[in-house]
């Protein structure tokens, strides 16, 4: 009996050792290919995004369609890294789950996450793939309509959604005080319709979608320049993820080739006739 257990043990130990060797060998050979053992699920590129996702970042709440700026970017990136289209797997999470500490269930997440130095202490970032202007959204009759300077805008009652850099923009760039903060963009628009706030700011593509679909009574009143302290959107990784270098290099090639810029013009076109307030 005990002999048999010993044999069994020896066999399993041997098998495990062989397996470990095999993994080691695979790691040495296949770094930077779809079978890279450092991937969450080797053979697949696992990408996190929020649930729901909004146009124009991704259309129809369907990342798999590849229609929309961010999912088109992911599929282009996957191709650049050697993955087939079917090898891209999506994980749907909330923003809180994406930023939560602990092991992340994705290789990287794409969700218009702004890169800041403080955030980079606890998560990993790729290089910036898009930097958006900010747009002022307001309903007819709001005091911000016709504003010509930051000083005109400052006096209004502002609102913003948590987790966005819109709040930091309002407080640090515009100098607004007592900004009301809501759970999401929908809450901001509810407050606007309830007359509790006069205006909000959002990334220009978000604002274009919102004023076209979510709250058609509202309009974009003005365009504001990007925040110098906000580098723009980057891909989010677990802190110290060894994949960053590989993904980042592929992203760099796409940016250099002009592919990303092409996508910006395809999916995120702005109305050029909007007034711009820059100080």
């Amino acid at each position, binding site marked *: 009996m005990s002999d048999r257990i010993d044999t069994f043990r020896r066999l399993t130990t041997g098998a495990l050792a062989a397996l470990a060797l095999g993994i080691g060998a695979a790691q040495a050979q296949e770094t930077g290919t779809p079978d890279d053992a450092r991937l969450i699920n080797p053979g697949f590129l696992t990408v996190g995004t929020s649930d729901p996702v909004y146009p124009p970042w991704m259309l129809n709440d369907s990342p798999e369609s590849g229609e929309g700026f961010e999912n088109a970017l992911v599929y282009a990136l996957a191709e650049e890294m050697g993955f087939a289209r079917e090898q891209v797997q999506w994980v749907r999470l909330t*923003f809180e789950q994406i*930023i939560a*500490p*602990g*092991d992340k269930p994705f290789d990287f997440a794409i969700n218009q996450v702004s890169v*800041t130095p*403080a*955030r980079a*202490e*606890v*998560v990993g970032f790729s290089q910036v793939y898009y930097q958006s202007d900010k747009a002022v959204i307001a309903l007819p009759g709001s005091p911000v309509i016709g504003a010509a300077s930051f000083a005109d805008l400052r006096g209004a009652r502002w*609102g913003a959604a*948590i*987790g*966005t*850099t819109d*709040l*930091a923009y309002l407080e640090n760039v515009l100098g607004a005080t007592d900004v*009301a*903060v*809501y*759970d999401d963009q929908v*809450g901001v628009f*509810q*407050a606007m*319709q*309830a*007359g*509790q*706030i006069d205006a909000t700011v959002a990334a220009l593509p978000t604002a274009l979608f919102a004023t076209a679909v979510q709250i058609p009574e509202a309009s974009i009143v003005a365009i504001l320049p990007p925040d110098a302290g906000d580098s723009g959107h980057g891909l989010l990784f677990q*802190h110290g993820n060894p994949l960053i270098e590989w993904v980042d290099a592929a992203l760099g090639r796409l940016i250099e080739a002009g592919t990303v810029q092409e996508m910006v013009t395809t999916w995120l076109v702005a109305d050029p006739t909007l007034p711009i307030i820059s100080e």
Partner: protein
Amino acid sequence: MIPEQPTTPPPPPKRRGFDWRTALVPGLIGGGSIVVVFGVLGWLVATNDNWPRIRAQFFNPDHMLAALPRVAWGFLTNMQVWLIAMACIGVWALVLAVVRSLRGAWFAPFRLMVMLYIDIFRGLPALLLVILFGFGIPALRIPGLPNSGLFWGGVAMVLCYSAYVCEIYRSGIDSVHEGQRAAARALGLSEWQIMVYAILPQALRNVLPSLMNIIVALQKDVALLSVIGVRDAVREAQIYTANTFNYSSLVVAAGLFLLATIPMARLADWVTARDRARRLQQAG
């Protein structure tokens, strides 16, 4: 016939000397098990591979210090809403409870109204009420009514908690013995006078511990107002977390809540103990 008395009295019970075993063993077992349980828990946490990262993200002193002013400022909002709501709830719930406990036939429609009120406001999640009141009523844009989220969120909390507190008051009113009512009526007091002079003073005293419990719960639930744009301690902490992805600000907020609720809990214990002592004294 008187039974014969024993000639020698029974020996007195043997006096027990100081027994180290009975004095020390329970203490040793208690202390030892505390050390073992907390030691194992602490060891499990400290040896976890992710612990240094968790510590940096949740217990980072620099981030805690940086978040403290704004979180503390938000906590002032919590305190203000809590105190004002507490006063309003205390009065409004008492009105409801008294109306519900009035016995005249003429009061039937009012009793029914209070019953419906309690069914509705106790049956709905507080969060839902806060959203409905905070966004819904201002959106009606009724002239003359304030449209601040803080105001309507506070109203929602008062309406919701009054339903609970009304039931507590009522249980207190019901717990006063029927004889008290009869005695008061025998003295010629009216229905109102019976309630005010005979029933309520005893009822309130009986439910004081339960009320303290509700007050602590209310203090924490003020954080629900954050969903309608009120920047309370929790929301300020969340803002800090969203900006930096560091959770230490939430720990700061948790600390502030504990600073406020733990003294409340001890106060509630003390009130209960004093009340118990008073009753036992009366009974003896």
